[in-house]
């Protein structure tokens, strides 16, 4: 049944594509696109919900005539969870796109957008359901390519083309690693169905390395993250929302799948590798997010940071498995999945809100923004709420994930007791603390600078807040709050997904973990409710106090300065400068300071810009070197016939000498 609904949604998408292909009317195109995605997302929602409620995986098998391939669809709890996320976000983003692309210039570009959106949507759902290596990889590549075209939507801009290229490179490179990975896993298999995969024992570590690189590229683990901060600003905001909300989660999904195939004892290296990678990812991600000035770039880096948190959850899980500390492991995986859901919801809503900002102001540079709340109050409210949530603060759902991760670390350290355990716990905890406070700083900065205070540059803001613009934001934010308070209600699904996927878990440990979850998540919910009700209570009290008092408004107190202007506000870069200054040895933010004027001060300017660390120290030099070598090599083909024939002669002689010549 679940599969049937999914297939139904794909058929729907196919029909929609046909329509779009032949239609020429703009309005109808737009409408059909939106409606199709919305309906098919409903189908997918129903399908995954069916599986979750019915409580048993749903599958469908059909032989397929390509090497190692078979059409093997399977929805287990894990897939169902991710599919739910996809359905919710995909549908809402489609709704948002209706408003966002309403003034799109040509019908052709509209239909292009929608067709590729269908492709991406269907591709992701396929990735979550495909249960055969070849099938999975085809879906994977389809997803990547369609998203590449979506990134290129505003292709007339040179930056966009560059970003698209980088994105294509990243995703293709990642896929190469996956090819090798599946090739190894599927060696001496007729058909690469997932349930047949097993590990050659001596290759375990390389296999996980391959998986980490291949899937980590999509998930945005450092140092394979470079495409995110390029592609997200370049893509239209709904696309970034879908990509950052769901698509990068496919990397996490893949990693969990790879974990689910192993039987027997897991090498310790896996957990340590994963933890190391993802803690670096998280910390560096949040630091970059603190340093950047581009609205969507900041959001992209915050995605990277959250991927780091998720990765740490997985890492703790793996480590716990290999140390046979079951409870910690289960808590880690559960934390990771919780965080996946949370981040999907909130990051997509943030990207959508940033889309509204872009649409209103046509700039992504937050130093030029400010005071937008008064212009777009609903969006402002939701952006504030989402920032609050994504900073991982209670009672939003972001906190649940981090809290569970913290619990996992705690139980790991308390039950493990060896020095390595403590060190692991230390690493995770420190990076968790840095990420937590860092993201609070980052998002107070973002929200405060963009929406609060006064506009820093007078821009022509044409206000757009139709219902299609705000409804998705409300729903996403609201869902997040509900998940945060009612996490106990979601826990069974997430935990079920974890238990059904992770191998080698004793029944007793599962039970203990369940009790721990109950002990913690319920009070969390209570506290959340308490917090909300207290807030409301105080607001009531205040209204009552201020009922018969003088409430005046006057300009901001600026210590007696008579003519405060909006340019006197604290800038975004100086807001986080002190923090970055601590890490300047690592990050090397480029500073430029102009100061004309001798005795008497005149116009002076000071700017700091932060370039991506990895890009600077790793990729740029690499590309430069290869290009230099290539230029050298080009000299071999200077157009002289004689030289060419000389090559032939030399090749002949060399071959004869190497492969024949033995001294008589």
């Amino acid at each position, binding site marked *: 049944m679940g599969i049937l609904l999914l297939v139904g949604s794909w058929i729907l998408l196919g029909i929609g594509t046909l329509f779009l292909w032949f239609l020429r009317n703009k309005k109808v195109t737009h409408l059909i696109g939106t409606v199709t995605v919305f309906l098919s997302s409903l189908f997918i929602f129903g399908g995954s919900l069916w599986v979750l409620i019915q409580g048993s995986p749903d599958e469908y098998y059909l032989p397929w005539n390509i090497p190692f391939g078979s059409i093997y669809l399977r929805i287990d709890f894990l897939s169902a969870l991710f599919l739910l996320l996809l359905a919710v976000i995909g549908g809402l983003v489609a709704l948002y796109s209706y408003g966002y692309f309403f003034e799109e210039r040509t019908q052709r570009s509209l239909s292009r957008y929608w067709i590729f959106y269908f492709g991406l949507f269907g591709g992701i759902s396929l990735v979550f359901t495909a249960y055969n290596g070849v099938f999975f990889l085809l879906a994977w590549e389809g997803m990547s390519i369609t998203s590449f075209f979506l990134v290129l939507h505003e292709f007339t801009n040179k930056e966009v083309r560059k970003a698209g290229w980088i994105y294509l490179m990243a995703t*293709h490179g990642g896929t190469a690693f996956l*090819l090798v990975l599946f090739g190894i896993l599927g060696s001496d298999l007729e058909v690469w169905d997932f349930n047949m995969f097993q590990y050659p024992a001596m290759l375990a570590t390389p296999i996980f390395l391959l998986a980490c690189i291949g899937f980590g590229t999509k998930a945005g683990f450092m140092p394979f993250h470079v495409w995110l901060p390029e592609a997200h600003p370049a893509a239209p905001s709904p696309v970034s929302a879908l990509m950052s909300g769901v698509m990068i989660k496919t990397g996490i999904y893949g990693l969990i799948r790879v974990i689910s195939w192993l039987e027997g004892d897991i090498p310790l290296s896996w957990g340590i590798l994963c933890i190391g990678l993802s803690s670096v990812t998280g910390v560096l991600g949040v630091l970059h997010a603190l340093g950047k000035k581009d609205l969507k770039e900041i959001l992209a880096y915050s995605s990277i940071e959250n991927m780091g948190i998720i990765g740490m959850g997985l890492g703790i899980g793996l480590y716990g498995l290999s140390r046979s500390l079951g409870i910690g492991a289960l808590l880690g995986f559960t934390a990771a999945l919780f965080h996946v859901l949370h981040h999907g919801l909130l990051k997509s809503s943030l990207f959508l809100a940033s889309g509204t900002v872009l649409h209103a102001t046509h700039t992504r540079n937050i130093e030029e923004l400010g005071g937008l709340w008064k212009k777009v109050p609903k969006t402002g409210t939701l952006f504030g709420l989402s920032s609050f949530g994504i900073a991982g603060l209670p009672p939003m759902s972001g906190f649940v994930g981090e809290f569970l991760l913290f619990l996992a670390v705690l139980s790991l350290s308390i039950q493990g007791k060896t020095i390595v355990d403590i060190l692991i716990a230390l690493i995770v905890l420190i990076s968790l603390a840095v990420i937590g406070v860092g993201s609070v700083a980052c998002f107070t900065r973002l929200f405060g600078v963009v929406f609060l205070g006064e506009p820093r540059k007078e821009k022509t803001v044409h206000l757009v807040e139709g219902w299609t613009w705000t409804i998705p934001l409300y729903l996403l934010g609201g869902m997040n709050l509900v998940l945060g308070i009612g996490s106990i209600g979601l826990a069974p699904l997430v935990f079920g997904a974890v238990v059904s996927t992770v191998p080698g878990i004793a029944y007793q440990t599962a039970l203990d973990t369940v009790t721990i979850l109950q002990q913690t998540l319920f009070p969390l919910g209570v506290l959340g409710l308490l917090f909300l009700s207290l807030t409301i209570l105080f607001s009531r009290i205040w209204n009552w106090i201020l009922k018969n008092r003088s409430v005046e408004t006057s300009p901001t107190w600026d210590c007696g300065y008579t003519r405060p202007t909006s340019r006197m506000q604290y800038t975004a870069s100086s807001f986080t400068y002190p923090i970055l200054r601590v890490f300047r040895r690592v990050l090397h933010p480029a500073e430029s300071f102009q100061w004309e004027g001798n005795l008497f001060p005149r116009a002076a300017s000071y700017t700091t810009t932060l370039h991506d660390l990895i890009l600077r120290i790793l990729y740029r030099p690499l590309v430069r070197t290869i290009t230099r070598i290539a230029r050298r090599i080009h000299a071999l083909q200077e157009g002289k016939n004689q030289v060419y024939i000389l090559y032939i002669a030399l090749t002949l002689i060399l071959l004869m000498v190497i492969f024949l010549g033995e001294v008589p």
Partner: protein
Amino acid sequence: MAWILVILPLLFGSLSLILRNHRIVWVLLLFGGILHSVITLWVWIRPIEGNSLVFLDPLGMLILTVTSALFLMVVFYSIGYLKNHKERSSLTVGCLFLFLAAMSLVSVSADMGLLWVAVEATTLASAPLIYFHKNHQSLEAAWKYLLICSVGIALALMGNIFLSYAGGDSIEGLYIPDLLQNANRLDPRWLKVAFILFLVGYGTKMGLAPLHSWLPDAHSEAPSMVSALLSGSLLNCAFLGILRAFGILRLSGLEEWGGNILILFGVSSLIMAALFLIQQTDFKRMLAYSSVEHMGILALGIGVGGLAGTGALLHLINHSLAKSFMFLVAGNILVFYQTKNIDSVTGLIQKTPKTAFLWMAGFLAIAGSPPFGLFMSEWIILKGLIDSEQWVLIIVYLLALFIVFASIAKYIISMTFSDSSPTVEESKGSFRRNEPLWMWVPPFLLASVTLILGLYVPQALLSFLSAIFPGMGGI
């Protein structure tokens, strides 16, 4: 019977050389192309036994079919193309037919000597086609092509002689089935020399680096349908020569030795192509270098053998289809923009949507990304490498493929999506928007075939391919 495949185009060619009226010539071209492919089909249905000179074994059938199919597509394209070059029709068509005849001879010849003659004939038949445009560059390209390939072919002839001597008195002549049967009675010393000579000789024609130097020039200067044939069929024919020799070598127990040389050539071609594709300024040269890369992949796959060998044969089909269709599309772009310079081609997608679509699809195809066939075959080859645990080769292979992908992607994106500056229309008086059928139907057909091969690889085909070389490993 098999002779018909050779004689028929020969006949048509001489006819079209004699009667110089371009209309008649076009009719001849269409008729001949269709007839040839029909006969090829018929040969599939009713297999025929060969004689001492010509025969049709699976390998030959493979090459023959690919050639014939491509020729058919090219026929449709060229009729449209020659509308703008009426005066050169008869010569071009004649040479096309002779070229076809030579290539068919290559694929049906059962005697190494005859094979050699045929390969040389392809050179002679295609040289005038490269000189189609009759300007400095095309002349230079033709001259280089002629000289380099003749040198190579001379070496291949030496190979023949050595092979015959390796046979000694035991084997009479160069009849391939004989050689295969008595392969173990060949004198290995002479056989080795013979193989090296074959490899260098036919390898020059096939465009294995560092013997590839003629290839970019010829492909970039020839009219696009000719480039399509050169890259799609001629290279295969040259490869057939190597394959024949390697087949004999395998049976005489020198597989390892010969395989290593092939792998060497494959790796060098991959690396060279990847490096030359960086900072390329001419999109037809870009395609040519990608051909070099794919030839490298073929050599690598065959050299490694096993599953990779089968993959290589599949890759041969896919590459021919994809590359020829890419060249046809490049021809369209050349017609529109009157330039081969990548930077001065802008905004394809706005001006010529169909061509842009095909160009993008073709990029995905030749860069080996799904859902096109090359992904499948490249992947099978990779699987073969993994099975034989050649980790270094795997790294080189993937790295080279990645660099190729990166550079081609860069050019294609900038050509397809860059903002079309109006100056292009103004400056190029010959700029046209409408895309007639002949321009996009043949490439579209080819593209769809590659697409199908990417999503559905018939088991029959796979087993056919893996049966070509005994012990080549199936799936």
